[in-house]
Protein backbone atom coordinates (compact mmCIF):
# COMPACT_ATOMS: atom_id res chain seq x y z
CA UNK A 1 0.00 0.00 0.00
CA UNK A 2 1.40 3.31 -1.05
CA UNK A 3 2.22 6.00 1.42
CA UNK A 4 0.52 8.61 -0.77
CA UNK A 5 -2.77 6.87 -0.57
CA UNK A 6 -2.67 6.45 3.19
CA UNK A 7 -1.75 10.10 3.58
CA UNK A 8 -4.67 11.04 1.34
CA UNK A 9 -7.15 8.98 3.36
CA UNK A 10 -5.76 10.29 6.63
CA UNK A 11 -6.03 13.91 5.58
CA UNK A 12 -9.58 13.66 4.34
CA UNK A 13 -10.39 11.56 7.42
CA UNK A 14 -9.10 14.31 9.67
CA UNK A 15 -11.41 16.89 8.17
CA UNK A 16 -14.48 14.65 8.41
CA UNK A 17 -13.31 13.81 11.90
CA UNK A 18 -13.24 17.48 12.80
CA UNK A 19 -16.91 17.67 11.83
CA UNK A 20 -17.70 14.66 13.99
CA UNK A 21 -15.83 16.31 16.85
CA UNK A 22 -17.89 19.48 16.61
CA UNK A 23 -21.13 17.51 16.59
CA UNK A 24 -19.87 15.28 19.39
CA UNK A 25 -19.05 18.25 21.59
CA UNK A 26 -22.60 19.47 21.02
CA UNK A 27 -23.86 16.15 22.38
CA UNK A 28 -21.55 16.34 25.38
CA UNK A 29 -22.43 19.89 26.36
CA UNK A 30 -26.13 19.11 26.55
CA UNK A 31 -25.49 15.76 28.21
CA UNK A 32 -23.36 17.31 30.91
CA UNK A 33 -25.76 20.12 31.65
CA UNK A 34 -28.93 18.03 31.61
CA UNK A 35 -28.15 14.32 31.51
CA UNK A 36 -29.96 14.09 28.17
CA UNK A 37 -28.59 12.56 25.00
CA UNK A 38 -30.07 15.03 22.55
CA UNK A 39 -30.79 12.93 19.49
CA UNK A 40 -31.96 16.05 17.68
CA UNK A 41 -28.36 17.27 17.59
CA UNK A 42 -27.90 16.07 14.00
CA UNK A 43 -30.86 18.15 12.83
CA UNK A 44 -29.04 21.35 13.76
CA UNK A 45 -26.22 20.19 11.51
CA UNK A 46 -28.72 19.76 8.68
CA UNK A 47 -30.32 23.13 9.44
CA UNK A 48 -26.97 24.89 9.32
CA UNK A 49 -26.30 23.67 5.80
CA UNK A 50 -29.77 24.17 4.37
CA UNK A 51 -30.30 27.57 5.97
CA UNK A 52 -27.02 28.75 4.49
CA UNK A 53 -28.30 27.58 1.14
CA UNK A 54 -31.51 29.57 1.56
CA UNK A 55 -29.63 32.67 2.67
CA UNK A 56 -27.42 32.41 -0.39
CA UNK A 57 -30.10 31.67 -2.95
CA UNK A 58 -33.34 33.21 -1.69
CA UNK A 59 -31.98 36.22 0.17
CA UNK A 60 -28.99 36.53 -2.18
CA UNK A 61 -26.70 37.24 0.76
CA UNK A 62 -22.95 36.96 0.34
CA UNK A 63 -21.40 33.94 2.04
CA UNK A 64 -19.88 35.92 4.92
CA UNK A 65 -23.37 37.13 5.85
CA UNK A 66 -25.20 33.92 5.07
CA UNK A 67 -23.15 31.86 7.50
CA UNK A 68 -23.81 33.89 10.67
CA UNK A 69 -27.40 34.23 9.59
CA UNK A 70 -27.80 30.46 9.29
CA UNK A 71 -26.09 29.92 12.64
CA UNK A 72 -28.40 32.46 14.27
CA UNK A 73 -31.56 30.90 12.88
CA UNK A 74 -30.42 27.38 13.87
CA UNK A 75 -29.72 28.68 17.36
CA UNK A 76 -33.22 30.13 17.55
CA UNK A 77 -34.57 26.70 16.60
CA UNK A 78 -32.41 25.29 19.41
CA UNK A 79 -33.89 27.78 21.88
CA UNK A 80 -37.43 27.01 20.75
CA UNK A 81 -36.71 23.31 21.06
CA UNK A 82 -35.58 23.71 24.66
CA UNK A 83 -38.45 26.04 25.53
CA UNK A 84 -41.23 24.07 23.87
CA UNK A 85 -40.09 20.47 24.18
CA UNK A 86 -37.70 20.15 27.12
CA UNK A 87 -38.62 22.76 29.72
CA UNK A 88 -42.39 22.19 29.99
CA UNK A 89 -41.87 18.53 30.84
CA UNK A 90 -43.46 17.69 34.18
CA UNK A 91 -41.44 14.58 34.85
CA UNK A 92 -38.09 15.02 33.19
CA UNK A 93 -36.85 11.44 33.50
CA UNK A 94 -33.97 10.60 31.14
CA UNK A 95 -36.05 8.17 29.11
CA UNK A 96 -38.84 10.70 28.55
CA UNK A 97 -36.34 13.31 27.51
CA UNK A 98 -34.54 11.00 25.11
CA UNK A 99 -37.80 10.03 23.45
CA UNK A 100 -38.74 13.70 23.19
CA UNK A 101 -35.47 14.54 21.48
CA UNK A 102 -36.03 11.69 19.01
CA UNK A 103 -39.54 12.99 18.35
CA UNK A 104 -38.22 16.52 17.98
CA UNK A 105 -35.63 15.31 15.52
CA UNK A 106 -38.26 13.59 13.37
CA UNK A 107 -40.39 16.73 13.45
CA UNK A 108 -37.54 19.06 12.46
CA UNK A 109 -36.49 16.68 9.69
CA UNK A 110 -40.07 16.46 8.40
CA UNK A 111 -40.45 20.23 8.34
CA UNK A 112 -37.12 20.56 6.57
CA UNK A 113 -38.32 18.11 3.93
CA UNK A 114 -41.41 20.27 3.34
CA UNK A 115 -39.35 23.44 3.09
CA UNK A 116 -36.36 22.27 1.05
CA UNK A 117 -37.75 19.16 -0.64
CA UNK A 118 -36.02 15.80 -0.94
CA UNK A 119 -33.29 16.92 -3.28
CA UNK A 120 -29.66 17.09 -2.42
CA UNK A 121 -28.29 20.62 -2.51
CA UNK A 122 -24.81 21.93 -3.05
CA UNK A 123 -23.23 24.93 -1.36
CA UNK A 124 -20.23 26.62 -2.99
CA UNK A 125 -16.91 26.10 -1.25
CA UNK A 126 -15.72 29.02 0.89
CA UNK A 127 -12.69 29.79 -1.24
CA UNK A 128 -12.64 27.93 -4.49
CA UNK A 129 -12.07 24.32 -5.53
CA UNK A 130 -8.44 24.42 -6.57
CA UNK A 131 -6.80 21.41 -4.94
CA UNK A 132 -3.69 21.92 -2.84
CA UNK A 133 -0.98 19.30 -3.00
CA UNK A 134 0.41 18.10 0.32
CA UNK A 135 3.29 15.64 0.05
CA UNK A 136 1.74 13.54 -2.68
CA UNK A 137 -1.82 13.86 -1.45
CA UNK A 138 -4.25 16.56 -2.44
CA UNK A 139 -6.70 18.42 -0.28
CA UNK A 140 -9.26 21.08 -1.03
CA UNK A 141 -9.24 24.57 0.48
CA UNK A 142 -12.49 23.60 2.18
CA UNK A 143 -10.64 20.93 4.18
CA UNK A 144 -8.45 23.66 5.61
CA UNK A 145 -11.49 25.79 6.39
CA UNK A 146 -12.99 22.86 8.26
CA UNK A 147 -9.88 22.24 10.33
CA UNK A 148 -9.38 25.94 11.07
CA UNK A 149 -12.98 26.66 12.01
CA UNK A 150 -13.16 23.56 14.18
CA UNK A 151 -10.00 24.60 15.96
CA UNK A 152 -11.30 28.13 16.56
CA UNK A 153 -14.68 26.86 17.76
CA UNK A 154 -13.05 24.47 20.20
CA UNK A 155 -10.76 27.21 21.53
CA UNK A 156 -13.71 29.54 22.08
CA UNK A 157 -15.45 26.75 23.93
CA UNK A 158 -12.45 26.12 26.11
CA UNK A 159 -12.15 29.81 26.97
CA UNK A 160 -15.84 30.00 27.75
CA UNK A 161 -15.89 26.97 30.05
CA UNK A 162 -12.66 27.65 31.88
CA UNK A 163 -12.23 31.40 31.90
CA UNK A 164 -15.65 32.95 32.25
CA UNK A 165 -17.88 32.84 35.26
CA UNK A 166 -20.86 31.76 33.21
CA UNK A 167 -18.86 28.87 31.77
CA UNK A 168 -17.69 27.85 35.21
CA UNK A 169 -21.28 27.95 36.39
CA UNK A 170 -22.19 25.55 33.60
CA UNK A 171 -19.40 23.20 34.60
CA UNK A 172 -20.60 23.48 38.19
CA UNK A 173 -24.05 22.31 37.07
CA UNK A 174 -22.55 19.29 35.42
CA UNK A 175 -20.69 18.31 38.58
CA UNK A 176 -23.41 18.89 41.11
CA UNK A 177 -26.73 20.35 40.12
CA UNK A 178 -28.03 20.61 43.67
CA UNK A 179 -25.05 22.53 44.94
CA UNK A 180 -25.20 24.74 41.86
CA UNK A 181 -28.74 25.75 42.76
CA UNK A 182 -27.64 26.46 46.32
CA UNK A 183 -25.06 29.00 45.29
CA UNK A 184 -27.63 30.83 43.21
CA UNK A 185 -27.05 29.33 39.78
CA UNK A 186 -30.27 29.13 37.81
CA UNK A 187 -29.90 25.57 36.56
CA UNK A 188 -32.71 25.89 34.04
CA UNK A 189 -31.02 28.85 32.44
CA UNK A 190 -27.86 26.78 32.16
CA UNK A 191 -29.85 24.09 30.38
CA UNK A 192 -31.06 26.70 27.90
CA UNK A 193 -27.48 27.89 27.46
CA UNK A 194 -26.33 24.38 26.71
CA UNK A 195 -28.92 24.10 23.95
CA UNK A 196 -27.85 27.46 22.53
CA UNK A 197 -24.19 26.49 22.40
CA UNK A 198 -24.88 23.01 21.05
CA UNK A 199 -27.25 24.08 18.31
CA UNK A 200 -24.85 26.81 17.21
CA UNK A 201 -21.96 24.36 17.10
CA UNK A 202 -24.06 21.82 15.21
CA UNK A 203 -24.98 24.49 12.67
CA UNK A 204 -21.32 25.45 12.24
CA UNK A 205 -20.46 21.81 11.55
CA UNK A 206 -23.28 21.53 9.01
CA UNK A 207 -22.22 24.68 7.21
CA UNK A 208 -18.55 23.91 6.85
CA UNK A 209 -19.12 20.32 5.70
CA UNK A 210 -21.88 21.12 3.19
CA UNK A 211 -19.58 22.28 0.34
CA UNK A 212 -17.77 18.92 0.47
CA UNK A 213 -20.54 16.43 0.95
CA UNK A 214 -23.64 18.33 -0.24
CA UNK A 215 -26.60 18.60 2.05
CA UNK A 216 -30.19 17.43 2.22
CA UNK A 217 -33.04 17.26 4.71
CA UNK A 218 -31.86 13.90 6.06
CA UNK A 219 -28.09 14.38 6.45
CA UNK A 220 -28.60 14.98 10.15
CA UNK A 221 -29.32 11.36 10.93
CA UNK A 222 -25.99 9.94 9.93
CA UNK A 223 -23.90 12.96 10.94
CA UNK A 224 -25.67 13.04 14.30
CA UNK A 225 -24.92 9.38 14.94
CA UNK A 226 -21.28 9.82 13.97
CA UNK A 227 -21.03 12.79 16.30
CA UNK A 228 -22.61 10.72 19.06
CA UNK A 229 -20.04 8.05 18.35
CA UNK A 230 -17.24 10.64 18.71
CA UNK A 231 -18.72 11.78 22.03
CA UNK A 232 -18.88 8.19 23.28
CA UNK A 233 -15.25 7.57 22.33
CA UNK A 234 -14.40 10.76 24.18
CA UNK A 235 -16.33 9.69 27.27
CA UNK A 236 -18.90 12.49 26.88
CA UNK A 237 -16.32 15.10 27.67
CA UNK A 238 -16.70 18.40 25.88
CA UNK A 239 -12.98 18.85 25.79
CA UNK A 240 -10.05 17.31 24.05
CA UNK A 241 -11.08 13.66 24.38
CA UNK A 242 -14.14 14.14 22.20
CA UNK A 243 -12.07 16.02 19.65
CA UNK A 244 -9.61 13.12 19.52
CA UNK A 245 -12.57 10.74 19.40
CA UNK A 246 -13.96 12.56 16.37
CA UNK A 247 -10.62 12.71 14.56
CA UNK A 248 -9.93 9.05 15.30
CA UNK A 249 -13.32 8.07 13.99
CA UNK A 250 -12.92 10.17 10.86
CA UNK A 251 -9.50 8.72 10.07
CA UNK A 252 -10.46 5.11 10.76
CA UNK A 253 -13.56 5.49 8.68
CA UNK A 254 -11.66 7.03 5.82
CA UNK A 255 -8.87 4.43 5.94
CA UNK A 256 -11.41 1.64 6.18
CA UNK A 257 -13.39 2.97 3.27
CA UNK A 258 -10.27 3.42 1.18
CA UNK A 259 -8.36 0.28 2.04
CA UNK A 260 -11.18 -2.22 2.56
CA UNK A 261 -14.31 -1.03 0.83
CA UNK A 262 -16.28 2.18 0.84
CA UNK A 263 -19.36 0.07 1.51
CA UNK A 264 -18.12 -0.42 5.07
CA UNK A 265 -17.69 3.30 5.79
CA UNK A 266 -20.66 3.66 8.11
CA UNK A 267 -20.32 0.17 9.53
CA UNK A 268 -16.85 1.06 10.83
CA UNK A 269 -18.24 3.89 12.93
CA UNK A 270 -20.85 1.66 14.49
CA UNK A 271 -18.43 -1.19 15.15
CA UNK A 272 -16.26 1.30 17.01
CA UNK A 273 -19.29 2.63 18.88
CA UNK A 274 -20.29 -0.87 19.98
CA UNK A 275 -16.76 -1.85 20.94
CA UNK A 276 -16.39 1.25 23.08
CA UNK A 277 -19.74 0.70 24.75
CA UNK A 278 -18.88 -2.94 25.48
CA UNK A 279 -15.29 -2.55 26.53
CA UNK A 280 -14.75 0.99 27.77
CA UNK A 281 -18.12 2.63 28.40
CA UNK A 282 -16.37 5.48 30.19
CA UNK A 283 -14.71 6.46 26.91
CA UNK A 284 -11.31 5.71 25.45
CA UNK A 285 -9.42 8.11 27.67
CA UNK A 286 -11.76 8.26 30.62
CA UNK A 287 -10.99 7.28 34.11
CA UNK A 288 -14.11 5.80 35.63
CA UNK A 289 -15.17 9.35 36.40
CA UNK A 290 -13.93 11.38 33.48
CA UNK A 291 -13.58 15.12 33.20
CA UNK A 292 -16.86 16.52 32.02
CA UNK A 293 -18.00 19.93 31.10
Amino acid sequence: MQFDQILQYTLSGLSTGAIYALIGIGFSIIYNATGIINFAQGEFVMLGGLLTLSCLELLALPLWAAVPCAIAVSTVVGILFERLAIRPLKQPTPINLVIITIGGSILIRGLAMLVWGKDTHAIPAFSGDVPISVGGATILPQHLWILAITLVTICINKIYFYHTISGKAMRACSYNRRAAGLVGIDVRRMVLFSFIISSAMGAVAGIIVAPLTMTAYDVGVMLGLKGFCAAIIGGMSSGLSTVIGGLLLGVLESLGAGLISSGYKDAIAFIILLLILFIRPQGLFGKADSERV
Partner: protein
Amino acid sequence: MLEVSGITQIFGGVTALDSVSFAISAGDITGVIGPNGAGKTTLFNIITGIYRQTAGTVHLEGKNVTGLPPEKLARLAMVRTFQNIELFGGMTVLENVMVGMHTKSSAGLLACAFKMPWSISEERRIREGAMKWLEFTGIVDLADHVAGSLPFGKGRLLEIARALAVEPRIILMDEPAAGLNSQETVGLAQLIKQIRDTGITVVLVEHDMELVMDICDRIIVLNLGTKLAEGTPREIQESSAVIAAYLGDDD
Protein backbone atom coordinates in the same frame (compact mmCIF):
# COMPACT_ATOMS: atom_id res chain seq x y z
CA MET B 1 -34.31 37.90 60.24
CA LEU B 2 -35.79 34.48 59.64
CA GLU B 3 -39.25 33.58 60.79
CA VAL B 4 -40.94 30.23 60.30
CA SER B 5 -44.48 29.67 61.38
CA GLY B 6 -46.68 26.63 61.49
CA ILE B 7 -44.31 24.46 59.44
CA THR B 8 -45.90 21.04 58.99
CA GLN B 9 -44.50 18.30 56.82
CA ILE B 10 -46.25 15.01 56.23
CA PHE B 11 -44.44 12.26 54.31
CA GLY B 12 -47.02 9.67 53.30
CA GLY B 13 -48.78 9.13 56.62
CA VAL B 14 -45.85 10.15 58.80
CA THR B 15 -45.82 13.60 60.34
CA ALA B 16 -42.16 14.66 60.25
CA LEU B 17 -42.84 18.19 61.48
CA ASP B 18 -45.93 19.35 63.29
CA SER B 19 -46.60 23.08 63.28
CA VAL B 20 -43.11 24.28 64.16
CA SER B 21 -42.71 28.03 64.65
CA PHE B 22 -39.78 30.15 65.71
CA ALA B 23 -37.98 33.37 64.89
CA ILE B 24 -34.27 33.89 64.52
CA SER B 25 -32.87 37.31 65.16
CA ALA B 26 -30.15 38.88 63.08
CA GLY B 27 -26.57 38.47 64.22
CA ASP B 28 -27.19 35.41 66.38
CA ILE B 29 -25.76 31.94 66.16
CA THR B 30 -28.79 29.71 66.62
CA GLY B 31 -28.48 25.99 67.13
CA VAL B 32 -31.23 23.54 66.23
CA ILE B 33 -30.79 20.35 68.21
CA GLY B 34 -32.82 17.27 68.96
CA PRO B 35 -32.58 13.47 68.99
CA ASN B 36 -32.31 11.55 65.72
CA GLY B 37 -35.51 11.73 63.72
CA ALA B 38 -36.63 14.94 65.40
CA GLY B 39 -37.04 16.60 61.99
CA LYS B 40 -34.04 18.94 62.05
CA THR B 41 -32.80 18.24 58.55
CA THR B 42 -36.33 18.19 57.17
CA LEU B 43 -36.82 21.64 58.66
CA PHE B 44 -33.64 22.86 56.99
CA ASN B 45 -34.69 21.41 53.67
CA ILE B 46 -37.98 23.24 53.88
CA ILE B 47 -36.46 26.57 54.85
CA THR B 48 -33.94 26.36 52.02
CA GLY B 49 -36.50 25.42 49.41
CA ILE B 50 -35.46 21.84 48.77
CA TYR B 51 -38.70 20.32 50.09
CA ARG B 52 -42.11 21.86 49.71
CA GLN B 53 -43.86 21.75 53.06
CA THR B 54 -47.42 20.54 53.63
CA ALA B 55 -48.30 23.73 55.51
CA GLY B 56 -46.70 26.80 57.04
CA THR B 57 -44.74 29.84 55.90
CA VAL B 58 -41.15 31.05 55.88
CA HIS B 59 -40.31 34.75 56.03
CA LEU B 60 -36.83 36.05 55.34
CA GLU B 61 -36.21 39.64 56.43
CA GLY B 62 -39.94 40.23 56.46
CA LYS B 63 -40.42 38.86 52.97
CA ASN B 64 -42.50 35.77 52.32
CA VAL B 65 -40.14 33.28 50.71
CA THR B 66 -42.25 30.17 51.20
CA GLY B 67 -41.57 27.64 48.48
CA LEU B 68 -38.92 29.64 46.61
CA PRO B 69 -36.28 27.43 44.98
CA PRO B 70 -32.72 27.43 46.39
CA GLU B 71 -31.24 29.60 43.63
CA LYS B 72 -33.76 32.39 44.33
CA LEU B 73 -33.05 32.15 48.06
CA ALA B 74 -29.33 32.40 47.39
CA ARG B 75 -30.00 35.63 45.54
CA LEU B 76 -31.96 36.82 48.61
CA ALA B 77 -28.81 36.21 50.67
CA MET B 78 -29.70 32.88 52.28
CA VAL B 79 -27.35 29.95 51.72
CA ARG B 80 -26.82 26.55 53.29
CA THR B 81 -24.25 23.81 53.60
CA PHE B 82 -24.90 20.09 53.66
CA GLN B 83 -24.12 17.34 56.10
CA ASN B 84 -22.57 15.37 53.26
CA ILE B 85 -20.56 18.09 51.62
CA GLU B 86 -21.67 18.93 48.11
CA LEU B 87 -18.83 20.27 45.98
CA PHE B 88 -18.12 20.62 42.29
CA GLY B 89 -15.74 17.68 42.40
CA GLY B 90 -13.86 18.12 39.15
CA MET B 91 -13.19 21.83 39.54
CA THR B 92 -10.42 23.38 41.56
CA VAL B 93 -10.95 24.72 45.06
CA LEU B 94 -10.64 28.26 43.74
CA GLU B 95 -13.12 27.65 40.93
CA ASN B 96 -15.65 26.27 43.40
CA VAL B 97 -15.58 29.54 45.31
CA MET B 98 -15.59 31.62 42.12
CA VAL B 99 -18.78 29.91 41.02
CA GLY B 100 -20.24 30.88 44.38
CA MET B 101 -19.54 34.49 43.54
CA HIS B 102 -21.22 34.37 40.17
CA THR B 103 -24.47 35.89 41.43
CA LYS B 104 -22.46 38.99 42.32
CA SER B 105 -20.91 39.14 38.90
CA SER B 106 -21.92 42.47 37.39
CA ALA B 107 -21.52 41.06 33.91
CA GLY B 108 -24.75 39.15 33.49
CA LEU B 109 -24.53 35.63 32.21
CA LEU B 110 -25.33 36.68 28.66
CA ALA B 111 -22.83 39.48 28.80
CA CYS B 112 -20.27 36.93 29.93
CA ALA B 113 -21.04 34.78 26.96
CA PHE B 114 -20.81 37.53 24.39
CA LYS B 115 -18.36 40.09 25.75
CA MET B 116 -15.39 37.86 26.28
CA PRO B 117 -12.53 40.29 26.97
CA TRP B 118 -14.49 42.37 29.39
CA SER B 119 -15.81 39.40 31.30
CA ILE B 120 -12.30 38.02 31.50
CA SER B 121 -11.25 41.08 33.49
CA GLU B 122 -14.42 40.54 35.49
CA GLU B 123 -13.14 37.05 36.12
CA ARG B 124 -9.91 38.41 37.50
CA ARG B 125 -11.86 40.52 40.00
CA ILE B 126 -13.88 37.48 41.03
CA ARG B 127 -10.75 35.38 41.33
CA GLU B 128 -9.33 37.89 43.82
CA GLY B 129 -12.56 37.95 45.76
CA ALA B 130 -12.59 34.16 45.89
CA MET B 131 -9.04 34.09 47.24
CA LYS B 132 -10.20 36.34 50.06
CA TRP B 133 -12.79 33.76 51.12
CA LEU B 134 -10.24 30.97 50.93
CA GLU B 135 -8.03 33.00 53.25
CA PHE B 136 -10.94 33.58 55.59
CA THR B 137 -11.57 29.85 55.92
CA GLY B 138 -7.86 29.04 56.00
CA ILE B 139 -7.57 26.88 52.89
CA VAL B 140 -5.91 29.38 50.58
CA ASP B 141 -2.92 27.08 50.13
CA LEU B 142 -5.22 24.49 48.55
CA ALA B 143 -6.57 26.88 45.90
CA ASP B 144 -5.31 24.90 42.92
CA HIS B 145 -6.22 21.44 44.22
CA VAL B 146 -9.11 19.57 42.66
CA ALA B 147 -12.05 19.83 45.03
CA GLY B 148 -12.89 16.14 44.75
CA SER B 149 -9.48 15.14 46.15
CA LEU B 150 -9.74 17.16 49.37
CA PRO B 151 -9.89 15.42 52.73
CA PHE B 152 -13.33 15.67 54.31
CA GLY B 153 -12.48 18.40 56.82
CA LYS B 154 -11.00 20.66 54.12
CA GLY B 155 -13.98 19.93 51.88
CA ARG B 156 -16.24 21.23 54.61
CA LEU B 157 -14.23 24.44 54.89
CA LEU B 158 -14.44 24.80 51.12
CA GLU B 159 -18.19 24.36 51.19
CA ILE B 160 -18.40 27.10 53.81
CA ALA B 161 -16.09 29.35 51.77
CA ARG B 162 -18.24 28.84 48.70
CA ALA B 163 -21.40 29.60 50.65
CA LEU B 164 -19.83 32.79 52.05
CA ALA B 165 -18.82 33.85 48.54
CA VAL B 166 -22.52 34.23 47.76
CA GLU B 167 -22.33 37.06 50.35
CA PRO B 168 -25.24 35.81 52.40
CA ARG B 169 -26.82 37.62 55.31
CA ILE B 170 -27.88 34.27 56.77
CA ILE B 171 -26.17 30.90 56.49
CA LEU B 172 -27.70 27.57 57.48
CA MET B 173 -25.29 24.75 58.23
CA ASP B 174 -26.44 21.16 58.44
CA GLU B 175 -24.21 19.36 60.96
CA PRO B 176 -21.02 21.25 60.14
CA ALA B 177 -19.00 19.25 62.66
CA ALA B 178 -20.11 15.83 61.41
CA GLY B 179 -17.10 13.81 60.34
CA LEU B 180 -14.58 16.27 61.74
CA ASN B 181 -11.95 15.32 64.31
CA SER B 182 -11.78 17.20 67.57
CA GLN B 183 -9.05 19.55 66.40
CA GLU B 184 -10.98 20.42 63.26
CA THR B 185 -14.10 20.97 65.35
CA VAL B 186 -12.28 23.53 67.49
CA GLY B 187 -11.23 25.35 64.33
CA LEU B 188 -14.77 25.19 63.02
CA ALA B 189 -16.17 26.73 66.19
CA GLN B 190 -13.70 29.58 65.79
CA LEU B 191 -14.68 30.02 62.15
CA ILE B 192 -18.41 30.07 62.89
CA LYS B 193 -17.85 32.79 65.49
CA GLN B 194 -15.83 34.77 62.95
CA ILE B 195 -18.64 34.42 60.43
CA ARG B 196 -21.09 35.75 63.00
CA ASP B 197 -18.71 38.63 63.78
CA THR B 198 -18.83 39.74 60.13
CA GLY B 199 -22.55 40.29 60.66
CA ILE B 200 -23.88 37.08 59.11
CA THR B 201 -26.65 35.29 60.97
CA VAL B 202 -25.82 31.62 61.50
CA VAL B 203 -28.24 28.75 62.01
CA LEU B 204 -26.88 25.27 62.55
CA VAL B 205 -28.18 21.79 63.08
CA GLU B 206 -25.66 19.96 65.19
CA HIS B 207 -25.20 16.85 67.29
CA ASP B 208 -21.98 17.90 68.95
CA MET B 209 -23.41 19.33 72.20
CA GLU B 210 -20.13 20.75 73.34
CA LEU B 211 -19.88 22.79 70.14
CA VAL B 212 -23.51 23.90 70.31
CA MET B 213 -23.32 24.96 73.96
CA ASP B 214 -20.03 26.73 73.32
CA ILE B 215 -20.92 28.89 70.33
CA CYS B 216 -24.69 29.29 70.17
CA ASP B 217 -26.49 32.38 71.39
CA ARG B 218 -29.83 30.63 71.26
CA ILE B 219 -30.92 27.03 70.94
CA ILE B 220 -34.10 25.50 69.57
CA VAL B 221 -34.86 21.92 70.58
CA LEU B 222 -36.95 19.72 68.34
CA ASN B 223 -38.37 16.39 69.39
CA LEU B 224 -40.58 14.10 67.31
CA GLY B 225 -41.42 16.89 64.90
CA THR B 226 -42.44 19.50 67.45
CA LYS B 227 -40.59 22.33 69.13
CA LEU B 228 -39.79 21.19 72.63
CA ALA B 229 -37.92 24.18 73.98
CA GLU B 230 -36.16 27.37 73.01
CA GLY B 231 -33.72 29.53 74.90
CA THR B 232 -30.12 30.28 75.79
CA PRO B 233 -27.70 27.36 76.19
CA ARG B 234 -27.98 27.62 79.98
CA GLU B 235 -31.78 27.54 79.92
CA ILE B 236 -31.74 24.53 77.62
CA GLN B 237 -29.27 22.64 79.79
CA GLU B 238 -31.51 23.15 82.77
CA SER B 239 -34.76 22.32 81.03
CA SER B 240 -36.27 19.13 82.40
CA ALA B 241 -38.26 18.56 79.21
CA VAL B 242 -35.06 18.54 77.15
CA ILE B 243 -33.28 16.24 79.55
CA ALA B 244 -36.24 13.88 79.44
CA ALA B 245 -36.25 13.86 75.64
CA TYR B 246 -32.56 13.07 75.42
CA LEU B 247 -32.11 10.69 78.32
CA GLY B 248 -35.60 9.23 78.57
CA ASP B 249 -38.22 9.88 81.20
CA ASP B 250 -37.93 8.42 84.66
CA ASP B 251 -41.55 7.41 84.68
